[in-house]
Each structure stands twice: as C-alpha cells, then as structure tokens.
C-alpha cells in the first residue's frame, strides 16, 4: 500500500491484518517500541485538530520514531500562497511518511499524486477520514468480538458527518449489518449514500428521527456531533445542535451489551452521566485510535 486516502483503498483482508497487528500491539507494546527508530512522521495540519494530530504523534513516538510538522495553515508556507503539491514535494524530503489534514476536500489525493513518501489522509473537510473509520472498526471488533451480524444506530448529523459515510462504506463489506439512521429531517443521510452504498449492497436500513424508537434493537449506538464548521448558516446550526442528547434515562431500554461510540470531541450530544455507564466506549475508542494508527504506520513503512 502506497497511500491511504479513502477507506476503500483498503480491502477487507488488509483491514483484518491491521486489526490483528493493532490487537497484538495492545497485548505486547514492548515488542513494537523500537520498530520505527530513525523514521520521521510529518504531521501537516492545514486546519487544527489536536486530537487526531496527537493520536498520530503518540502512535509514532510509541513506535520509537520521531515527529515534526505544523498544526495550522497560518504557521506554514500555505499562508504565503504555496500549493499543496509544492508543500508535499518539499516535506517529502524531510520525512518518511506524511499525515495530512486539510480543509479542502480532495487535498490529500492531490498530495498523494505528487508525493514519493506515503500519505495518510487525516481528514479532508467533510469528505474522508479513513483512520477514524479504522479506529471505529477496531473498537467494534474489540468490544463486540465481530464485524458482522450487527445492528448499528447512527445518530446525529448524517448529512455532513463524514465518519458516518465512511463507516457505512466500510461496514457494507461485512455480512448481515443493519443500520438505524437517526437524524433530524434536515440532516438525513444523503440520497447518493443510500443508493450507491446501502441499496447497492442490499443492506437493510431504517430511518427515524426518534432516538428511542429502535433503541432496544441496537448493538452499537454511534453518536455524532453537529459540526458548526459544516454549516453556511449559523441559525441552522443553532437550531439543530442539541437535537439529540443521549442520557442515562434514554439508555434504560437499551441492550446490556450495547456499545456507545462517538468520534469525539462531543459537545452536548452525550450527557456526562453516561460516562460512568459501562456501555460507554468513546474514550476507549480514542485509545484504540492510537493502536490502529500504530499498526497503519508500520504497514505503510513496511516495518514488520
């Protein structure tokens, strides 16, 4: 594998292999502590994302490697008007692998076309965020023990939520996956995702705007934040941001082994009283993110 731009760049076997390595890292961290010595990971964050950047940096440091980079465009040559293509050509000289986040959709693909070192897309606007999806898959595998035969509730912003679109794409390759799509009418899953992924793969799905309607059927409840930066109109954001608030009361009817996930950061959509519930997996999910990124860095640098 040369670059990871879209979750579809990985086939099921490659994802299985990454999950296997990540689980081995969890069990034997010392074995991997020096695997990337003398290697450099560059984190090019053209828009701020502390969480994803720190997760990648932590992953590389725990593999014994080094990191360099910038965390916002204003502190890079982009502020002087440099193109993505030029930035990548230069940074490729200073690093062995590049992680990139950019507000413009498709920017990592442009970078991959010009780069001699592997590029990992760490989020491009509302488009792709494949390592979040890998994180989600590792979380599901570790918490539920399987990636098939699951009923998954996706709740919140299903229109602009790229994590949701990528997760649906990734899960479409596993057997007997059912989705419950929970969103306000304005933030419903786009038609093209329904047609080109769900219906094309003959996957069962139900749409509702009531978070409680199918709560008792869910194996996984994936909450998402309504993201301010995806709206052109602030009034729409204000009206929709607190549409769903998951709390202890609402979880009373849920299965005992429900797995509650969230890509984080959360705002109000999961109330703090849920944090103590053993079904809350979102902080564990962030930790799984580091492990799957370690596995991915190893794979892309071809370190065994």
């Amino acid at each position, binding site marked *: 594998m040369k670059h990871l731009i879209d979750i579809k760049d990985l086939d099921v076997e490659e994802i299985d292999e990454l999950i296997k390595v990540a689980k081995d890292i969890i069990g034997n961290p010392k074995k991997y502590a020096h695997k990337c010595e003398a290697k450099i990971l560059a984190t090019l964050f053209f828009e701020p994302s502390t969480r994803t950047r720190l997760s990648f940096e932590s992953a590389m440091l725990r593999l014994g490697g080094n990191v360099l980079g910038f965390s916002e465009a204003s502190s890079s040559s982009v502020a002087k008007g440099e*193109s*993505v*293509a030029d930035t990548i050509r230069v940074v490729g000289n200073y690093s062995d692998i590049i992680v990139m986040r*950019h*507000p*413009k*959709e*498709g*920017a990592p*693909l*442009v970078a991959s076309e010009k780069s001699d070192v592997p590029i990992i897309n760490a989020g*491009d*606007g*509302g*488009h792709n965020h494949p390592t979040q999806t890998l994180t989600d898959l590792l979380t599901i595998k570790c918490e539920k023990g399987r990636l098939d035969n699951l009923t998954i509730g996706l709740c919140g912003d299903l229109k602009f939520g790229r994590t949701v679109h990528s997760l649906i794409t990734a899960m479409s390759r596993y057997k007997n996956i059912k989705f419950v799509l929970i969103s306000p009418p304005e933030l419903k899953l786009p038609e*093209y995702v329904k047609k*080109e992924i769900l219906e094309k793969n003959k996957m069962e799905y139900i749409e509702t705007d009531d978070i409680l309607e199918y709560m008792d059927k869910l194996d996984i409840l994936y909450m998402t934040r309504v993201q301010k930066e995806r709206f052109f109109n602030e009034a729409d954001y204000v009206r929709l941001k607190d549409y769903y608030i998951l709390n202890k009361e609402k979880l009373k009817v849920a299965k005992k082994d429900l797995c509650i996930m969230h890509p984080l950061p959360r705002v109000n959509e999961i109330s703090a009283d849920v944090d103590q519930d053993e079904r809350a997996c979102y902080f564990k999910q962030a930790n799984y993110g580091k492990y799957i990124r370690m596995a991915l860095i190893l794979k892309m640098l071809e370190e065994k």
Partner: protein
Amino acid sequence: MNIDSIKNGYVIDHLKVGKAMEVYELLNLKNLECQVAIITNAKSNKMKKKDIIKIDKLIDIDLAKLAFIDPDVTINIVKNDKIIEKKKLAQPEKIVNVAKCKNPRCITSIERDLDQIFLLTNKENNTYRCKYCEASLKD
C-alpha cells in the same frame, strides 16, 4: 423547413432536446468557418422531439466531450453526399477540463494547475463525480 444537405461533414443526430446549444458551446463550433446548422425540436419517431447539428466539414470532433453531453447521440459521417458511417458513442470513463467542480470545499477551487477531472461512477444514470471531492456534477 428545409436545410441544405451536406456534402462532406457530420450530422449529429438524436441529441436530447436542449443539448444542441451545449454541444455548440463545448465543441467550439462557433469558431468554425463552414456552415453549421442547429435544429431544435425536430420531429422524431423514436424520441418524439430531438435536436440535430449539421456541420458542413469533416473537422476533428472531441468525441469524449460529445458523449459526456449526451451519450445517446448518433454521429453520421457524410462523404460525397453519402452517409458512410453511423457511430454510437460510449460514455467516457473520464473527462478532463470539460466541466468545473461546483463544490466550494473542493481542492480544485484553490489549487493551481490542477486539472478538473470527473469520473463516470454510474453508467445507468450518467453520473460523473469529481475525482478529488467526489461531488456529483449534477448537484
């Protein structure tokens, strides 16, 4: 209505109504010095109504562009007053610098010297998506 037949050239037939002007613009037919006839709302047994373009010269036609605008057209090649070939076109898998991505969040809106590339993602409904942001050209 009579329009002269052509001696050597093309008859682009079975264009969907309204597509003739798009073809005229995109294939730069306005720059030709030969006769070009645009017929809209012509009667058709198969389509009820159709557009037709006649070009009175055997010029180089960008078939990919033409198939992108309307994949169902027929091109009749005329030589010495006779139709010597009827061509059906296949939808191009990829079109380059024919249309511009309308997604303001797409990298193509700011990156210098980047081609505007669209890929055919659904043959049945003729959907093209931007190679970079995957926005549909129709949206």
